[in-house]
């Protein structure tokens, strides 16, 4: 899935057992548009979709562009809920949306165990079976998709970039 960046985005983790994470310190580039923190529960995905829709609309994206961004972010959040957190509803997901020139960047942060990026591949579409389409949808819907190197022990960071059309 996309290229792997060596960019470091180390945040602060305070205390033990229930760490306080300060993602605000992450050196994301671009102008902040919106940020949301949700529990890793399917019922909150509609909130994420609404936020992405508003961000796209407010930044001059066409309806198709917005739809593609919404799908990519929704599918990425699903992957976090299902695979990174393994269905644990008490995980935390941060969705950060920024304007970068003629693009919108979305960073998705989680605090699950680091995923093995090499195992994330779309399945062949000719192999018709339930599941396995999320990664394909993400790749098709955004212009850039890459994992940033997470700080040790603090999860994963997926960066999606969509050119505004």
């Amino acid at each position, binding site marked *: 899935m996309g290229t792997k960046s060596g960019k470091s985005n180390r945040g602060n983790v305070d205390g033990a057992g229930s760490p306080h994470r300060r993602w605000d310190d992450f050196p994301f580039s671009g102008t902040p548009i919106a940020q949301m923190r949700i529990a890793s529960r*399917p*019922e909150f*995905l*509609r909130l994420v*979709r609404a936020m992405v829709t508003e961000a796209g609309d407010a930044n001059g994206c066409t309806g198709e562009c917005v*739809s593609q961004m*919404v*799908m990519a972010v*929704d*599918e990425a959040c*699903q992957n976090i*809920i*299902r695979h990174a957190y393994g269905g644990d509803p008490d995980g935390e997901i941060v969705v950060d949306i920024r304007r970068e020139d003629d693009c919108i960047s979305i960073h998705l942060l989680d605090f699950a165990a680091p995923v093995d990026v090499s195992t994330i591949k779309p399945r062949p*579409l000719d192999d*018709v*079976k*339930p*599941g*396995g*389409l*999320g990664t*394909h*949808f993400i790749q*098709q*819907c955004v212009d850039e998709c890459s994992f940033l190197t997470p700080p040790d022990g603090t999860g994963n960071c997926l960066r999606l970039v969509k050119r505004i059309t």
Partner: protein
Amino acid sequence: MAYEVRSEGDTTIVALSGDIDLESSPQVRSVLLESVGAKRGVLVEMSAVSYIDSSGVASLVEAYQSARRGRTLFALVAVSEAAMRVLELARLDQVFAIHTSVTEALADGG
């Protein structure tokens, strides 16, 4: 997401509406598999589906495969533009039987 199930002759029509996402797709999966399991033809009416994600698509594929195993009708009807874009992205528009209306689907036998 909401759904409505009705019968026309020996065919079950499942009308889906709203967002079919990770929250609602288990319910969609359940109603579709139950309908297919009744050994009746199933038409899935999707004109009011505003959003469908990969988990929703997976529910459709699972029901489709179950119907094929049982040699019963399974087709999609009046698929909304939003849902069709997703099916096309997965190239499933070439896999599912898709009709413009229930009347057409019933006339064509699915």
